[in-house]
């Protein structure tokens, strides 16, 4: 930050010697920056504390978790991880991991495909009553999901899809998450149409246009959509709770809850150890995709 204001260090030190005003200015900036950083650091730590606590508790034996405030375990133990992984059921925790992926991956893919197609339609085509449909789309964003739970449950029961992952991801094939569609529409509206016109002249039809031109330019937005959907779906508790009834199909969210139900006292260290592992995929996926968030892929072709 300092460097931005005074790019030349040599000149700066020379200036500093004989310019008390400048010195005062710099000190003011430094103090200001320190205060800002301290405040940010404090709130950052407050927010991260539960996470640290979870990690450290995962390494503590069960009796120590609620008896000591220290983040550092007195008796370091991996029992939580080992027992937690084996779970109280006939399956290991790995099974629940896979179960989660079984519905999260199709969910993400279907969301991306259907949302992009619908957004493309909204942003680039003249549709009768487009305004009305768009308002309807936005209205669905505001609709609380719980309102749909019972009718949806009944519908999937009639279709015989209970205790399968279909109810969890099938709706995504129809761009039912208005938020993502809306996000993509807004992104598309911000993109210049010249490239699409050039591609039209080059001979693209609407589908080729979407595949060759629009999708690559939408990449940052698509990755954001995929990322949000991935994280929200992994965290989803209510959906699996309603539709999945057999333990062998439980995803992580339900599996963690499973251990809490045991009557003879909860093995908190196991739960916390598994919870720690459970957030790893989300973090990894986020770190991988994070670069694409920043990459403004369309900027290069637009300006000189």
């Amino acid at each position, binding site marked *: 930050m300092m460097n931005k204001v005074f790019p030349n260090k040599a000149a700066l030190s020379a200036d500093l010697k004989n310019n008390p005003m400048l010195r005062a200015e710099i000190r003011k900036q430094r103090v200001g920056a320190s205060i800002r950083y301290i405040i940010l650091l404090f709130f950052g730590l407050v927010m991260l504390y539960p996470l640290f606590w979870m990690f450290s508790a995962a390494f503590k034996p069960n009796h120590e978790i609620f008896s000591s405030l220290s983040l550092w375990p007195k008796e370091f133990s991996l029992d939580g991880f080992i027992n937690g992984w084996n779970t109280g059921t006939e399956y290991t925790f790995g099974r629940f991991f896979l179960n989660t992926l079984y519905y999260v991956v199709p969910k993400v893919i279907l969301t991306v495909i259907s949302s992009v197609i619908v957004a493309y339609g909204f942003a680039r085509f003249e549709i009768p009553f487009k305004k009305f449909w768009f308002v309807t789309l936005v209205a669905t964003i505001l609709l609380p999901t719980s309102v749909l739970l019972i009718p949806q449950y009944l519908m999937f029961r009639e279709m015989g899809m209970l205790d399968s992952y279909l109810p969890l991801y099938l709706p995504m094939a129809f761009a039912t998450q208005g938020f993502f569609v809306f996000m993509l529409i807004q992104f598309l509206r911000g993109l*210049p149409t010249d490239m699409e016109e050039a591609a039209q002249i080059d001979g693209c039809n609407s589908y080729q246009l979407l595949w060759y031109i629009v999708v690559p330019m939408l990449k940052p937005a698509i990755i954001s959509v995929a990322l949000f959907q991935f994280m929200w779906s992994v965290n989803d508790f209510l959906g699996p709770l309603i539709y999945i009834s057999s333990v062998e199909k439980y995803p992580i969210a339900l599996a963690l809850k499973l251990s809490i139900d045991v009557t003879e006292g909860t093995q908190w260290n196991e739960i916390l150890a598994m919870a720690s592992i459970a957030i790893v995929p989300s973090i990894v996926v986020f770190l991988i995709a994070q670069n694409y968030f920043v990459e403004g892929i369309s900027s290069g*072709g637009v300006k*000189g």
Partner: protein
Amino acid sequence: MSKVVFENLTKVYSNGFKAVHGINLEIEDGEFLVVIGPSGCAKSTTLRMLAGLESVTGGSISIGGKVVNGLPPKDRGIAMVFQNYALYPHMSVRENLGFGLKLAKVSKADIEKQVNEAAELLELTPLLDRLPRQLSGGQAQRVAVGRAIVKRPQVFLFDEPLSNLDAKLRASMRVRISDLHKTLKKTNRSATSVYVTHDQTEAMTMGDRICVMKDGHIMQVDTPANLYKYPKNLFVAGFIGAPEMNMVETRLDRTGEGKCHLALSSQMLGLPDEKLQKVLTNFTEDVVFGIRPEFIKLADENSPQDEIIRGTIVRMENMGAEFYVHFTVEDRELCTRIPADVVEAKLLDAIGKEQLFHFEMNNGHIFSKATEINISL
């Protein structure tokens, strides 16, 4: 054959705005036509209709004798260069150039050959593997032109292709595009070009003919020289030429025996016989007198008496080789271009002083004030 014909072409937008008012235009095979006009004159709309990016409300467009109104852009045999290049950001230069051919299912070897050929023509060979964001503005524009060439279209369309470049680059690209047009013509390739711009230097230097548009109407279509020398109406006269033509609202006085005088404030200018005959056939009293700055000279002993006007110099702009000398004739301000050496010899410290000017009336124009039409042609 790739002649382009507009017949009574009309565009009305869905909100009822009439952008193009039934224009008729023929662009000859191999011709380089520049369409020029102020912003909002529908020059781009017209071009986009020709490209097929904008629907046609009325009339017809034909390319090479075939009406293309309902055809999608790809079936019209056109290629277009956009103002902001419109390169595909995720494709390399090579892929950008070959994309149209790839869609047309041309074999890989042929694509390679044609891309290389175009790259050579435009000196893009070393850049073929770069992405658009790694190119400078001029390079990007060359790729955009290359993309058009690779397609071997019947008609090239340019939509203000140079307006995003800096002045120097613009000048060199201007020459390049002109040369390219000539090269294509020489090698018997279709080279009919429609070039939309608002820059009159581009129009004057590049066009075989220039089409001047205003508010969805064609004002005049002619060669650059004719457009400059014989503007058909007030708009064309004022739009073409820098510094602008001097325009003075005035009266045309018949002064017996078929003579006419123009009143410039209290001073009079006589009309030479040739102009007089033409003016008399369309005689109207309220007129606008126009004369280009270069046709106002410093008066000398050879200047005819009825072409001399007394003015007061108010300002001189040094343009290097010449000066723009602004002077007032009573309440009107006019401008003339005078070579630097003449200024140095005769006009040092002339600001604020009176000076006699010779108006070369043979090169003047008289426009009817009511119809804005040039009645002296």
